[in-house]
């Protein structure tokens, strides 16, 4: 019997960086689009970003300000087995991780797409920087990115930047110290407005980027993309709709997505000619693996046992340094926009190393409203208290991100015997760092220590004995590639085995680099949306 359900042209799963672009582009292109989002919208007026700690029950500890972005049981519905110290950052809210991010937006360099060709490791991406560059350009113009083109091969630039953020004095001191070392300090590139743009106001320098921007000066799919899709009249947003599995027809092609309405607990379906997964690295793999059928007994698009594999991300590490020449200055408002400057990868400029890849460094200011030095400074009493105060103006917080090599044995699986609150099998992470990852982590720590010595600072660090990840930058699991035996998607993020199935989030990355993945995710999503529009026009989808 024919279904009476409305059939949409496209069903998108997930409303973050990838889903927002896809929804806007396809809706504006005339397609009838439905988007399933597991969470509900939180209006920026409800954000707790500007609350003082003493206005909150637990003083802002215990994730108090950001708990509203992690809805339902999303935090609990995951397991780690045989894993090193890693964690995946999964959110459930309209806008996904773009409502709670630092918005650093970096283009991959040409070399980042060619690890096999240049270093003999991993695989090359099935597309080049030159092919993706026009889409980087369009995304930067679309979302508003502050910064500048610094003319660096390792960090290609565009031509649509908003003015860079002003620098703090500590950041000038850092630049002065690293220049003789051959290490550049440049303005950070962030999807943050330094002047009015696209109906949104500029940054007001409160420092609360990661707690949710209450005026949407930081780009969020929820406030900058989804409303544009809704304005077309072609777009339907289903909130609280947690995708369970993708259903297929007799030919094994996607025909519908089943989901749980988390407000009622009831299972529903939405029919669509095309399905696009934008649910992020862990959830997209989980959804495909949970979509088993006679045509796809190992999960959808997984006849080669590649879905879930090649899980990668970033080694994350942090060092707080306090510049001695700034000790004792009178208090000033240093909140700003968290990070104003950036150190791009520089180890490729050094003599030949015995590892592949590199690291970059975000220079954050993280002591707004709380003096982190007080947690590391030894002693007590009046002198301790005075020293905490004196150190406050000089913070340089180094956020170090290292490449992690994509290896087949690192993976996401699902276990049908372990389910979430709605009976859906949960993801299980299996991840071990490799020798190359550990070497990068060790080298980057040593390099940052050398920088801190040149700056003449007091240093607080806890690199630990082993690396940790993923700094919210997990990628891989549904990788692109030219070989269907070692990849799931082609260069247009289209499944080799299911032509009306696309995936455009971080899971698509063939390999990772040291760079934050979000801009590349958005560029890939834009490129795929163009492909889908073209294929629809030709009647091929």
């Amino acid at each position, binding site marked *: 019997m024919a279904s009476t359900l409305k059939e949409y042209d496209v069903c998108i799963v997930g409303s973050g960086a990838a889903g927002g672009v896809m929804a806007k582009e396809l809706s504006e292109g005339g397609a009838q689009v439905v988007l399933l989002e597991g969470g509900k919208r939180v209006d920026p007026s409800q954000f707790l970003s500007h609350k003082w700690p003493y*206005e909150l029950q637990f003083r802002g500890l215990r*994730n108090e300000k950001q708990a509203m972005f992690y809805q339902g049981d999303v*935090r609990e519905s995951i397991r780690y087995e045989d894993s090193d110290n890693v964690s995946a950052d999964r959110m459930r809210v309209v806008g996904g991780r773009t409502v709670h991010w630092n918005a650093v937006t970096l283009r991959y360099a040409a070399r980042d797409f060619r690890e096999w060709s240049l270093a003999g490791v991993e695989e090359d991406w099935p597309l080049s920087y030159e092919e993706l560059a026009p889409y980087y350009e369009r995304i930067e113009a679309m979302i508003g990115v502050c910064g500048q083109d610094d003319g660096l091969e390792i960090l290609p630039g565009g031509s649509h930047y908003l003015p860079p953020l002003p620098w703090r004095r500590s950041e000038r001191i850092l630049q002065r110290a690293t220049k003789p070392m051959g290490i550049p300090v440049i303005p950070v590139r962030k999807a943050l407005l330094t002047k009015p743009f696209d109906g949104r106001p500029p940054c007001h320098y409160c420092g609360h980027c990661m707690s949710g921007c209450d005026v949407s000066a930081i780009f969020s799919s929820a406030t900058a993309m989804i409303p544009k899709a809704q304005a077309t009249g072609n777009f339907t947003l289903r909130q609280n709709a947690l995708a369970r599995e993708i259903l297929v027809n007799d030919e094994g092609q996607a025909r519908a997505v089943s989901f749980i309405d988390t407000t009622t607990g009831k299972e529903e379906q939405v029919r669509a000619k095309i399905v696009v997964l934008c649910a992020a690295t862990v959830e997209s793999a989980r959804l495909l693996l949970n979509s088993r059928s006679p045509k796809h007994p190992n999960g959808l698009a997984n006849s080669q046992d590649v879905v879930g594999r090649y899980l990668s991300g970033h080694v994350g590490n942090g060092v707080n340094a306090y510049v001695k020449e700034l000790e004792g200055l009178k*208090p000033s*408002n240093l909140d700003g926009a968290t990070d104003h400057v950036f150190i791009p990868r520089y180890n490729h400029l050094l003599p030949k190393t015995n590892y592949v890849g590199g690291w970059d460094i975000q220079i954050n200011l993280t002591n707004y*409203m709380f003096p982190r030095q007080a947690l590391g400074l030894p002693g007590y009493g009046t002198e301790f208290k005075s020293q905490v105060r004196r150190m406050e103006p000089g913070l340089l917080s180094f956020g170090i991100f290292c490449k992690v090599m994509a290896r087949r044995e690192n993976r996401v699986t699902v276990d049908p015997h372990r389910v979430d609150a709605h009976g859906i099998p949960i993801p299980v992470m299996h991840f071990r760092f490799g020798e190359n990852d550990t070497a990068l982590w060790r080298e980057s720590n040593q390099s940052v220590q050398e920088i801190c010595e040149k700056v003449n600072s007091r240093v607080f660090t806890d690199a630990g004995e082993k690396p940790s990840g993923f700094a919210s930058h997990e990628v891989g699991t549904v990788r692109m590639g030219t070989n269907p035996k070692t990849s799931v998607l082609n260069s247009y993020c289209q499944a080799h085995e299911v032509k009306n199935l696309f995936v455009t989030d971080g899971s698509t990355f063939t390999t990772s680099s040291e760079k934050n993945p979000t801009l590349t995710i958005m560029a890939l999503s834009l490129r795929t949306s163009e492909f889908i529009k073209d294929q629809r026009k030709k009647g091929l989808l």
Partner: protein
Amino acid sequence: MERRTALRIIALGAMTPQLEALGAATHCAMQEGTAWMPADYKLQFFTPAENELVDQLSEIIIPADAHSPGAHAAKVSLFADLMVATSSDAVKAQWRNGLHLFQEAAAKSSPATAIAEVAAHEQHPTSDLERFFIVLKVMTVNGYYTSEIGIHQDLEYIGNTYLDVFPGYPPLV
């Protein structure tokens, strides 16, 4: 909060997801933000004697001085009571035992002497009491510097506002 957790929070301050993961792993309840009212607060975990001891010890760690009031005025002991009362049984046991050890040490001399003796081993603690001092200090730091007194009177923090122009400090010459 464990010493190791505290140090990792320093190190990973730039990386909120890890911070959240740590928070989720080390604490139990998460609640919507609500104003905290010390004036109405009733002890949930500490006995009155324990609360008095925490009040004394925290004031020694962050005392009142000519610049600003200390941990006693900031009611750090009440903050500590709330945090411990809403933590795991293991954390509660650690505090009950740690305060007992401090009570014994203070009885032999004074709270100030007891603090001085254990603080000398802060970098390399070996006994339960020395390890508990670090827990107590982290709690005191967290409680004091998230209070109105710590933020506004001691640090003279002037941020968390809406600015048209980023002020910072005058640029480096």
